[in-house]
């Protein structure tokens, strides 16, 4: 470790920070988009219409069975083909933009399962109690079920987001410049793998560790309220 050269990091910090900014952007986009799409999928799975159930289950099971790296590459290659088919024009998307789309549709499958089990974790007796008080279906959902479900699933949703934040590093497969991709590109040029990869590992560790502690704290707070 004696010749660990901090100046490599200092001279390249701007490029690394750009990469980290992209990683955070993809994470936040996929989190918001994924939770929205995931909620829709979860409600479909819990709906009484079987085609809706089936469609949602197929979507969720499909994305949960394939490796994320494969989806990243497949979407990157197939999305332009599809757009060309739909619009008749060749639209260049680029690796960086394709990742936003991929992560949103991929993470939705994982968020959907979390949201579904959150809703199902509320005992049926609570629904009955809501109706017994004279609430309508939407009142029961809004006032009784969803607040409890959200509390149950919030820590898990956040934990999944930490996983997502780490998984963005897999855009390496299509050469996008995320945090890890930036470090890798510097390594290819300067041949300093020790400094670059260690920096990425340390930064990832510090951020994810802090976030997971925050989730734990939140969990204990929520546990007291219940």
């Amino acid at each position: 470790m004696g010749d660990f050269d901090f100046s490599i990091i200092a001279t390249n910090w701007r490029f690394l920070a750009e990469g980290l900014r992209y990683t955070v952007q993809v994470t936040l986009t996929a989190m918001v988009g994924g939770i929205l799409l995931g909620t829709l999928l979860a409600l479909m799975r819990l709906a009484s219409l079987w085609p809706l159930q089936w469609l949602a289950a197929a979507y969720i099971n499909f994305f949960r069975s394939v490796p994320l790296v494969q989806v990243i590459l497949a979407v990157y290659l197939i999305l332009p083909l599809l757009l060309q088919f739909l619009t008749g024009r060749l639209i260049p998307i680029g690796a960086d933009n394709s990742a936003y789309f991929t992560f949103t549709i991929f993470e939705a499958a994982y968020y959907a399962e979390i949201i579904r089990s959150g809703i199902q974790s509320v005992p049926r007796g609570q629904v009955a109690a809501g109706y017994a008080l004279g609430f309508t279906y939407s009142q029961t959902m809004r006032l009784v079920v969803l607040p409890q479900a959200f509390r149950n699933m919030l820590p898990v949703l956040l934990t999944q987001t930490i996983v997502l934040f780490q998984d963005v590093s897999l855009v390496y497969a299509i050469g996008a410049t995320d945090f890890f991709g930036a470090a890798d590109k510097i390594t290819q040029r300067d041949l300093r793998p020790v400094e670059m990869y260690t920096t990425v590992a340390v930064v990832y560790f510090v951020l994810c560790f802090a976030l997971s502690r925050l989730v734990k704290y939140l969990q204990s707070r929520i546990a007291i309220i219940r």
Partner: protein
Amino acid sequence: MNYHWDWLFFFQEADDGLMYYQWVLSGLGWTVAVSLTSLAIALLLGSAFGVMRTTPNRWLIAIGDTYVDVFRNIPLIVQLFLWFFVLPELVPRDIGLWMKQDLPYFVTAVIGLGLFTGARIAEQVKAGINSLSRGQRFAGLALGFTEWQTYRYVRLPMAYRIVLPALTSEAMNVYKNSAVTYSVGILELYFQYKQIIEKTSQVLEITIVITLAYFVVAFATNRLFAWIEQRSRVPGMIAGGQGGK
């Protein structure tokens, strides 16, 4: 769509004399080999560290917690790059050279994936043990078992049964995560996928085939664990396991 479908390309000869479908099969073989070996390593590590975290010993708990925190909070691909490109530079020169030249990629990759997965399994094992009632440990001790014997005969057999569903999904995750080892030169399924796309541009056919291949291994793993679950089920106990009261 101006896409030119051609399913027969799988039977064309690639530049190494093999046919493309043989590339797929060889990739599948490596995927299974990497996954199963990593899973075995992960189960050992996960059990050891998971048990450590449930002992009354502060130091063992700290070691177990540190392992889990470190390996859960760094992305897999970064961990693999650390083992492949950073560690050889940090150890003495001769060992570093040996790691770079003579140590098979496979070994480094499965250790990397095993350590990564082990941290997740350690979480499950710990949760399983902690879900048992304190009384089970007491009952073992009261019969004269040593602390280790209470794990061996009482707590672990029940803990494994309880976390088997979670272990099933970890096992399926290993298959998916094994795809990341392409980045350090393992010629597994995803590596072949990337390579075949570069050579043939038949994106859709190969995407369908590789996706199906991953489905098959995931399904087989799922069935295997369902079988284990059925074999190990305890009569009179509700499925999913009720460790204690």
